[in-house]
């Protein structure tokens, strides 16, 4: 059930009416039923996968807690031996559950990739599997594994009610494309009793409208020529830069728009999901960019991969070795750099089963690692050049520099292969001519699309201007939604009407399957 389908809107409408009509103590049960209906609507077979993840994680959480409480009750007998036993038991449970869940994700998502590599190396022709890829498996697997590790590290107690836990894993607005929620942030909201609140509902609807605007006016218009150029990149070598800039707009509009819709829908139930975007194109470094783009994935990686790796015994030994070999400063930074590279390698693999995604991840990781290593030098150089860190010009330079670096990575994200990405990057440098932007060839890129014209480009620029304006205001710490809600009703209505009618007038039908790019993850 795509987020832009009429079926989904009706589903949400019925869900909201039902949610506030039934006795409050059953609200979470209603959400659970709806979440499973939503999930099963994409195929009854895929319910098995989410149930598998739910059952294994729930059971592991309970077992971990039981082991810990048993240990607390039996503190008198042979304490150190018992402690070791407990640690190894808990570790066994966690590792088994992680293997089961990530194993499932890995088999479904990456088997064909591995076969492809094997075929290339060995010259064999092993046939690919036609696996079913369950809806949102990457998102709910990460969310439930985050819960498992938190329980293991005793950050909070596990959920004892299986059905409540099942709701945490399957909460329908976020299952398709995130955000990846944490149990301690989301669960209590899911189980609390909510009363309908007009102001809250209006803010939620605003957010949904804004999300659809970004998706339909920004992303879908950009997709028309982005697809045209990427699909026929050899015909349009001079437009590689335009293609990747367009892809920036498309991906941001698509993903952040989808997240706005999701957050808005959750808001209709009185549930506040974590923000996943924070004006990413105002980032001043790649590291800053990843604190603003797909934030929940970034924090997940930081908490469950970066820190465990950085604080591991192996890394500590590596740190000592690095300090001895390269000196104190570099020695302290190197383990962090290594952890960052691993994190972004995982981010790349998470994005998909292809070499281009691995390179995409490594590219980001290497830049962050390099920046970390060079940080002290940068400071020296800045001092030598009398650069004021807080000057507007320097900030603009940093933003533009980061934007360029991010766009280079998009070549790998969007192209069909590493080869295509490299050719397009080369074309961007060797074939770029300003005249190619003005000679009408850009209109040729969307030739396969009906009624593609200069008007679409104008609409796209208009959409970008609106979104940029809003982002700029938000970057200056002004809550646009709150400002709007405090305006007189006629102004609000006018804004809502304009947003609403912009969707059919300025928007295009979606080009990616399922409507949203990240809905395929």
């Amino acid at each position, binding site marked *: *059930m*795509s987020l*832009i*389908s*009429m*079926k*989904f*809107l*009706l589903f949400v409408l019925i869900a909201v009416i039902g949610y506030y009509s039934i006795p409050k103590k059953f609200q979470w049960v209603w959400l659970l039923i709806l979440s499973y209906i939503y999930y099963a609507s994409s195929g009854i077979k895929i319910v098995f996968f989410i149930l598998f993840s739910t059952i294994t994680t729930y059971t592991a959480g309970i077992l971990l807690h039981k082991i810990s409480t048993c240990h607390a009750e039996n503190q008198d007998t042979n304490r150190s031996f018992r402690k070791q036993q407990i640690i190894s038991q808990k570790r066994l449970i966690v590792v088994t559950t992680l293997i089961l869940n990530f194993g499932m994700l890995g088999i479904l998502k990456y088997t064909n990739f591995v076969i492809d590599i094997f075929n290339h190396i060995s010259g064999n022709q092993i046939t690919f599997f036609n696996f079913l890829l369950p809806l949102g498996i990457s998102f709910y697997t990460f969310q439930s594994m985050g819960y498992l590790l938190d329980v293991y590290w005793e950050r909070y107690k596990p959920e004892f009610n299986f059905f409540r836990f099942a709701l945490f894993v399957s909460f329908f607005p976020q299952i398709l494309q995130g955000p990846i929620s944490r149990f301690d942030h989301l669960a209590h909201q899911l189980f609390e009793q909510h009363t309908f609140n*007009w102001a809250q509902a209006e803010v939620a609807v605003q957010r949904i409208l804004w999300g659809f605007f970004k998706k*339909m006016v920004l992303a879908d218009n950009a997709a028309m020529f982005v697809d045209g150029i990427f699909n026929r990149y050899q015909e349009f070598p001079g437009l590689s830069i335009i293609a990747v800039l367009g892809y920036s707009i498309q991906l941001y509009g698509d993903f952040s728009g989808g997240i706005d819709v999701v957050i808005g829908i959750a808001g209709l139930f009185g549930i506040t999901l974590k923000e996943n975007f924070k004006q990413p194109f105002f980032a001043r470094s790649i590291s800053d960019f990843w604190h603003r783009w797909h934030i929940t994935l970034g924090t997940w990686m930081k908490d469950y991969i970066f820190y465990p790796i950085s604080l591991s015994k192996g890394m500590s030994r590596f740190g000592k070795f690095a300090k001895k070999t390269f000196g104190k400063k570099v020695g302290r930074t190197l383990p962090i750099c290594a952890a960052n590279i691993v994190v972004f390698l995982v981010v790349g693999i998470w994005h998909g089963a292809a070499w281009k995604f691995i390179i995409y991840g490594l590219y980001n990781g290497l830049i962050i690692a390099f920046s970390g290593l060079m940080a002290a030098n940068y400071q020296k150089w800045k001092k030598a050049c009398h650069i004021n860190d807080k000057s507007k010009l320097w900030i603009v330079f940093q933003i533009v520099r980061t934007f360029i670096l991010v766009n280079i990575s998009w070549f790998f994200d969007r192209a069909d292969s590493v080869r295509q990405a490299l050719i397009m990057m080369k074309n961007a440098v060797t074939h770029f001519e300003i005249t190619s932007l003005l000679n009408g060839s850009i209109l040729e890129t969307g030739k396969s699309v*009906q*009624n593609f014209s200069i008007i679409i480009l104008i609409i796209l620029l208009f959409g970008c201007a609106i979104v940029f304006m809003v982002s700029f205001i938000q970057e200056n710490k002004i809550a646009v939604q709150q400002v709007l809600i405090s305006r007189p*009703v006629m102004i609000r*209505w006018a804004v*809502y*009407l304009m947003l*609403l*009618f912009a*969707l*059919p*007038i300025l*928007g295009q*039908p*979606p080009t990616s399957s399922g409507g949203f790019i990240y809905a395929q993850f």
Partner: protein
Amino acid sequence: MHNFKKVGGIVLFIALCVVISGMFNFMLVPYSYIRVDVHNIQEKKYDDLYIGTSHGKAGINPLEVDKITGRKSTNLCLGGEYLEDSYFLIKEAVRHHKPKRIIYEADPGYWVTKPSQNTDYNMIYREFPPSLVKVEYYIAKNLSADFRNTIFPWYMCRNQYTAIPSIIKTKLSQEYKNYGTKVFKAENQSYEEEGFVHINRMKGVPKSKDNLILWDEAKVYQGNLEYFKKLVQYCKKNDIELIAITTPIPQETLEQYAEHYDDANKYFSKLMNQYNITYYNFNYMEEKEIDRSSDAFSDYDGHMYGDAAQNFSRILGKYLNRK
């Protein structure tokens, strides 16, 4: 009181949206001959109904066929008509008068593509009067589609903004109110009686190959298969005879893409045989009277010129008489 005001405000806002949307609907949705086709099946009684694609629309002249068969028929084929549309067109027709026979024009290209959300998407649905069939059609076609198709029915016609004055003028005319067809007369084609579109020969206009979609069994759209089965069952249940045909295409195209067309023929022959349906693929019938030269077609895809269609319709009539 507070809630009442809030609900009242929302109702007012929705009413405003409906009014604005209604205005756009009036201004942007053009008068199309599907309105006439749908009106015909509501008002007239037919023995035979033709369903299918633009090949059928341009290739089958019901008046010519009727001269041979002695029956009364109408052409409900349409460019962009997939089997799900055909199925509901038949249901709508049966709601008013049950035909004796349905002739389905199967275009291989339509079996390997999905209905795309362009101007054709809701053209047939839009012209249906309110009924349970329309509700069923809505659920089948629009419930899973982009919500803009439902909330803004003019959404797919938004690019018609340059035609707004002429659309308004037409819709305010007597011609529109009386389901007239003069408005569809253009230099290159005209809509004639009983749903036939007569394509005129145009000097100096190059023949296009752009619309050619080649057969690939791996790409068969399952939605078509599903609605084909439904159509077969529906006809069986209502005691309506179902015949399938494929209209001829230029010999040049057939030879150039022989493998694709042969495979399509095998597929359809097998499918029709499975359901015990008579199937005439006029590309493979030894029928000398059919003009297969490219002179008979307006493009390489197989849209017949009006005069070639007259000839083909008479031949089709003979085949339909065989049953």
